């Protein structure tokens, strides 16, 4: 099977590419894209958030059978070292991450929000970012999203 990840077609080994295999594990265990994280497995925490055709999606519950012909973007392609995404700059400027584990998912959710809503209100930010962060980086990530909006 082939899926389209970060701008390139990627081949998945036929013996493991069960169409019900969640995208998360195809990314992490078959393609080595470990920036997308496993947190709960039931789409409840958002650590595994990626973009699917530009929309935020929780990859732990998206089967690879459902992403054929669609564009998957992960944290690895949100920006680059030379040209980070404005949110990534804001993340460093506001010193958001602590342990950092949930941050990929939050950044992907926030980037999808800003792509469809340039100036989200607090309520819109709250609604779009319902990810879990156990370190409690919420006040800073809110400030970072506002500054990048």
């Amino acid at each position, binding site marked *: 099977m082939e899926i389209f990840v970060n701008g390139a077609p990627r081949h998945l080994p036929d013996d493991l590419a069960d169409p019900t295999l969640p995208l998360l594990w195809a990314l992490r265990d078959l393609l080595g894209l470990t920036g997308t994280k*496993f947190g709960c497995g039931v789409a409840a925490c958002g650590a595994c958030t990626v973009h699917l055709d530009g929309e935020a999606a929780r990859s732990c519950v998206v089967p690879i059978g459902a992403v054929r012909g669609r564009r998957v973007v992960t944290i690895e392609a949100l920006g680059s070292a030379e040209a980070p995404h404005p949110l990534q700059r804001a993340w460093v400027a506001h*010193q958001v991450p602590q*342990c950092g584990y949930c941050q990929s998912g939050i950044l992907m959710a926030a980037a999808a929000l800003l792509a469809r809503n340039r100036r989200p209100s607090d309520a819109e930010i*709250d609604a779009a970012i319902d990810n879990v962060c156990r*370190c409690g980086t919420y006040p800073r*990530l809110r400030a970072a999203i506002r500054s990048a909006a």
Partner: protein
Amino acid sequence: MKRRALLVSGLGAAGALVVGWGLLPPRERIGAVDALPVEAGEVGLNGWIKIAADGAVMLAMNRSEMGQGTHTALAMLVAEELDVALARVRLVAAGADRLYGNVVTMVTGFPFFHPRDTEPGRETAPARAGQWVVAKIARELGINVTGGSSSVVDAWDVLRLAAATARARLVGAASIAWKQPAGEIVVVDGVVSHPAGSSAHYGELARMAAATPTGEVRLKRREDWRLIGTAAPRIDAAAKSDGSARFGIDIRLPGLLYAAIRHCPMLGGSAGAVDVAPALALAGVERVVRLGPYGGSTAALAVVGRTWWHAQRGAAALKVEWQQRPAGALDSDAVMAHLEERARAAASGGGGFAFHSRGDLVRADAAAAQHVEQTYRAPYLAHATMEPINCTARVAGGKVEVWAPTQVPGLARAIAADVAGVAEAAVTVHVTYLGGGFGRRLDVDFVGQAVRIALETGGRPVQLIWSREEDLGHDFYRPAAVTILRAGLGADGLPQTLRITSAGDAITPRWLERGIPALAGPVDTPDKTTSEGLFDQIYAIPHQRIAHVATLSGVPVGYWRSVGHSHNAFFVESFVDELAHAAGRDPLDYRLALLADAPRHAAVLRLAAERAGWPGQGRSRPLAPGRARGVALHESFGSIVAQVVEASIEGGRPRVHRVVCAADIGSVVNPGIVAQQIEGAVIFALSAALHGHIDIAGGVVRQTNFPSYPVVRLAEAPVVETHLVDSTRGPGGVGEIGTPPLAPALANALFVLTGKRLRELPLRL
């Protein structure tokens, strides 16, 4: 030397033991160069510091980064004394040498002296002697622990001295080479120069410096600091914003296999007959491994697969006859009833271990104008670190390699050696970033499991990952507690007597049993963590008895961010609020009246009150309609924190809008990280205060994932402000100190709103 000799002679058997081990002056913690291996082009200057060919400073990093910012803070100490930019400090993993052990966790954890006895510069003789003996033992044991909010406290003198010593030798080398007095040589960002024109970077001087005697070493004066005390950006922020930071779960090795796990759902139970055929019939499943209990875990089955999803699907397909724990099914309601019974019996009979006693309670109680007695409760809690529990292991050619997000690499090494049946010298532990620790990763059950599985994979590495369900169902939980508080108030409304009798499991004896069996005694010794925050409460109350009944519930218990303080602060600071109400006084004024001889605590409390706009304090600020304030003050890990919570009730549920924090943490290394930690600790505590409880029925934990173990998310997160008191004392702890005051400050605000006193966590209206 003379004073030490006197102390030792007064210590009897313990003293003799210490003399036998030999004296070890603090300076020896700088260590010898052979503790820190060098590669081509590098030059070691002591056990902590080596210099790279390009002049960069390489620091042996012995502490785990789990979000608390310790990698940045420790690198700052070294950058300061060596006069290099923070970016010029490179971290290298510290090895297993006991030099890298943690002295402070043991010194603050084992002898339980009242804070009044350990006030720096005013320590009592027994406290000083006790701390000295434990420090000696801690250095000999060299157990490497990242926990107890101790990393900066432990490193403060050692790393600054190691860096200053290295700098003195580098400057000394330049002085000899250039035939110029050392006092005329300056260092700017690792470049050493003399006004006469000579100049060289550290890399060019290192080899000569290694052969140069240290000479006189002085730490920088506080007024000369240019980095310590600044909010320098964290060194890990960029990697944690672009997905490149490597956590344990991100380790990728050639031929890597993945393992999923199913523990017996009943805590402490085991697996009987297993039908493995349905699992092995699935594509991508390689094998099934039976796991006994490791490091305190419940028995389990692991399934090895080619991706974690394939392994997990295999684990779900196993048909297992699970067996209940021989001592009977655990039940949290039964535990709570038992704790209450034990606390009640001890409270009426003067039982439990008295961690603190003073005055004459019987006489003072008889003279009291009124008495207040209440019972408080706290449930079991899970850690729920964002990075699920995991460990990667490879066993090949008699060697064991482990990649683990762990707070205790030495214990990881020990269990790996034990499980693989090899000497510890044959085990290498690589500590990765930790996706949260909060105390869960002070246990190494998952390391033992991973190594056991790796014994079955023919030399291929295997990565064990627990599902979230396994994590919540098989944690080492924050112990449940029941506490009875009774005070006798004088005619002025202030407490003359305080009796606190708490009951709950002790963590430390259980942790030693499963992690360091050689240190676990045949009989449990009193564990300070059961009573911390109670026996050392700071209010001036002349007659006290603070006792704890240590129970053995059978539920696996562990250290949870702020440990005993996490619930004991709720008990004491809610109860003091009750006393203020009984006395008809403002809760802030009431506390200040009890802090007449505790000026640091009073200053912190006033600062929080002023910044929160508390009536009568500074610029008092009226509240929005429907809102109320509550206050709490608590000392933990050598730091003092006050919080004022501004709350309302929305849709029948508590809503926290703003938390104003003031803290005296002594010297501040990085105020930005301190603010980050306090914000995070407040939100961690808010999750527990509003939502947190683990319930056990029939031996099975009922909470399975975030939907049934909810935590605070963005929409529920308050604004958090942090204000620090200027201080020239040595540093106190940071990572945990923001957690304890939140629940009582919130409960006290809810009392103002509803008139109802909530005495059980989580807080339910």
